[in-house]
């Protein structure tokens, strides 16, 4: 009998797993799967890498070697010749450092720069409770008064103006409370509209004038024509955004309404505004508005632009929100009716919160479009960033500077618009209530 103990080797314990082949791990595997998965993909990858390399090889030295300290393009070129030799191509960022204030503030008086900065900070604080939840409700009070303070900070003048205009809203609120208790909510609403309008038309100006003469508290008045640069883009953009949303909601509701006249008025308004380019509306504002107003009225070009931009964005907003309203199941409307809610209650409590949630991406896209469209005001003579870049290039010091200014303007717009779209994605995730 053979010696069985020496016949074969029998392994008693499991072997550890072998390392996968080198081509199936880590970066090699990733590259094989994501970059070189077929001959077509390989060609595309190589071409793309070459393209990226070509672009970076041209742009990076130009950008990184840029000259930051000079007072004119000729000086820039002299410095370049000294450092790199006459054939080198480098950026002249000095135009940004030298004209920094102008690009941001236009021709706003330099000793008053703190005012727009403070207004921006105030706006940031005031908008926080609206954008993010979990902030004490006290801050909403600040949100309510911030527009008036910002207006006063930006344009200056007597402090009584904004205060007594704001008083009109308080009067309307009081009128609504008093009258609706005595004679029903419809009468209350009418009173809440009529009382402030009468106040603004007849009482506001005399009171402001008298108080301004008696107690001249105020800041130096700065006319709209001194506004410019990114400050102008921000003012028009932010005002337009804030005003166009409620107007757009009203228009969308009008378009969904069963009431024939209101429905048709909204449809015509929306379609006419959307059918014509913004630039034509802006020219209308600057050329024609004086025809439509009583003889002798002449009001601020910037205010006209803000009104036009707001109306324009509101028409687009209305279509976006209409989509949201149409996407809601009919059961939501019927449910609201069966609870006995009246029209405004059902809209406020049931329909609009859901419809607005659905249309967030579209709404934010409209906001982004509006903010980008603020650049068009250059054509009617306002000095937005692009207008300023033209003005800077028109001076002898900086004649011939193109790319540095364009890159700066584009980058600032990109940062603003991109962060808006990121915020909308955050908001969508936060408000998502379906269970997935």
């Amino acid at each position, binding site marked *: 009998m053979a010696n069985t103990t020496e016949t074969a080797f029998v392994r008693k314990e499991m072997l550890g797993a072998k390392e996968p082949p080198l081509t199936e791990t880590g970066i090699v595997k990733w590259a094989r*799967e*994501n*970059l070189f*998965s077929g001959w077509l*993909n390989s060609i*595309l*990858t190589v071409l*793309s*890498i070459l*393209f*990226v390399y070509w672009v970076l090889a041209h742009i990076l030295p130009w950008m990184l070697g840029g000259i930051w300290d000079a007072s004119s393009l000729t000086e820039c070129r002299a410095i370049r010749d000294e450092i790199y030799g006459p054939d080198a191509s480098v950026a002249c960022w000095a135009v940004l450092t030298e004209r920094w204030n102008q690009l941001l503030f236009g021709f706003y008086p330099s000793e008053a720069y703190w005012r727009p900065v403070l207004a921006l900070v105030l706006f940031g604080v005031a908008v926080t409770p609206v954008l993010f939840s979990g902030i004490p409700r006290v801050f909403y009070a600040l949100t309510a008064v911030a527009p008036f303070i910002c207006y006063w900070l930006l344009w200056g003048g007597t402090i009584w103006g904004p205060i007594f205009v704001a008083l009109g809203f308080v009067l309307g609120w009081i009128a609504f409370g008093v009258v609706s208790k005595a004679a029903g909510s*419809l009468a209350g609403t009418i009173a809440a509209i009529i009382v402030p309008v009468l106040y603004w038309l007849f009482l506001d100006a005399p009171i402001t004038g008298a108080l301004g003469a008696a107690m001249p508290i105020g800041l130096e008045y700065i006319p709209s024509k001194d506004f410019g640069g990114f400050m102008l883009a921000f003012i028009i953009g932010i005002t337009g955004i804030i005003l166009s949303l409620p107007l757009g909601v009203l228009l969308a509701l009008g378009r969904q309404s*069963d*009431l*024939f*006249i*209101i429905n048709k*008025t909204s449809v015509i308004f929306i*379609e*006419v505004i*959307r*059918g*014509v*380019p*913004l*630039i*034509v509306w802006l*020219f*209308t504002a600057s*050329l*024609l508005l*004086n*025809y*439509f*107003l*009583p*003889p002798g009225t002449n009001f601020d070009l910037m205010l006209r632009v803000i009104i036009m931009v707001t109306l324009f964005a509101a028409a687009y907003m209305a279509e976006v929100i209409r989509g949201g309203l149409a996407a809601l199941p009919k059961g939501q409307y019927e449910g609201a009716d069966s609870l006995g809610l009246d029209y405004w209650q059902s809209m406020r409590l049931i329909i609009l919160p859901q419809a607005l949630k659905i249309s967030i991406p579209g709404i934010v896209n409209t906001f*982004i479009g509006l903010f*980008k*469209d603020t*650049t*068009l005001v*250059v*054509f009617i003579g306002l000095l937005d960033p*692009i207008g300023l870049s033209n003005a800077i290039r028109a001076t002898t010091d900086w004649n011939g500077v*193109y*790319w540095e200014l*364009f890159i700066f*303007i*584009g980058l600032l*717009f*990109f940062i603003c*618009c*991109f962060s808006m*779209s990121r915020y909308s994605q955050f908001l969508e995730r936060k408000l998502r209530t379906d269970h997935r």
Partner: protein
Amino acid sequence: MTTLTDPPKESFRLSQLIYDTRYRSLTIQVVAMFLLVLALSWLVSNTIQNLAALGKDFDFGFLTNVAGYDINQRLIEYDSTSTHGRAALVGILNTLLVAFLGCILATVIGVIAGVLRLSKNWIIARLMTVYVEGFRNVPLLLWIIVIFAVMTESTPSPRDFREGGSASMMLFDSIAVSNRGVYVPAPIWAEGSAIVVAVFLLSLVGIFLFRRFARARQEATGQILPVGWVALGLFFGPALIAFFLMGRPISLEYPELGGFNFTGGIQLRNSLIALWLALSLYTGAFIAENVRGGILAVSKGQTEAAFALGLRPNRTMSLVILPQALRVIIPPLISQYLNLTKNSSLAIAVGYMDVRSTLGGITINQTGRELEGMLLLGLFYLITSLVISGVMNIYNNSVKLKER
């Protein structure tokens, strides 16, 4: 015992106008109508008063007056002795030209970028993301100005194309990119070229008929004919044969450097090219997002089911995925086309003579007819928008899912 009583007599009270929902809507509408008419008549009376104060009337007669200005970019005959109406027409055609070219290029760019953004190739997908986000988040006006600056500042001047100059023409000396515009060869139509064109048009009809025949045959018998190859052959074959049979009647006139500028060929002005490229790239970024969304909206089960039926990948794409994705893509695509057409009014930034520059610009400045000019301008854009959306809606109805 119960007695049936008549329901209380309906008597109309005035308060029902406010509190009864049956009548309230009527009240609201009457009030709204009243306010609307009031507002409109206020605007109209202001306008009449203002016009009277300025000593102007409301009259479109200026359209038949001599314009007296030149337009460098024109599709129809025009000179400075033509009328303002003719100038407006030149502008309208220029607007439509750039909008038409832009829509085509934007669709091509958008579809390619949208599909590539979904590519499994990491670097391609990233590059497309950079393109889409970069163009979507920067104002169109800036892009137009930047591209125009590239065209005028970074391209060689015609002088550099001389012997020993730094620049040279592309594609066998046929295309010249200079800071005065892009020069391309112009076709010369000699005798007999009409026949070549006619043959070409006939072969297009042939392609269309063959496709219908192939589809009918496939539905009847299940046989699949090689439509693509036949269409390709029909597209080039007959036209080329006719071209050589007729003794090559169509030839090209190449641009040549003469004096200080190029002569011959077709000059594509930098303003047109910059506007066209900027509009296409900008709108293309938006279309790319629509295309991506449309493709993602088709559920993966559709692809798997098509594979399970034994369809090949390209047939899966053309027969299953694309028809469903199109339903999602087309409505936003329509509004992108509309946006592009309206955005073409930014031509003002590069001096391209579109309708806003002729009718809404120089004509208004020369005649002082702001009201009439802006009204016509607005009407033109409004009608164009309505026509485009009408046509595209017909197409949308033909591709959308037929329910019941």
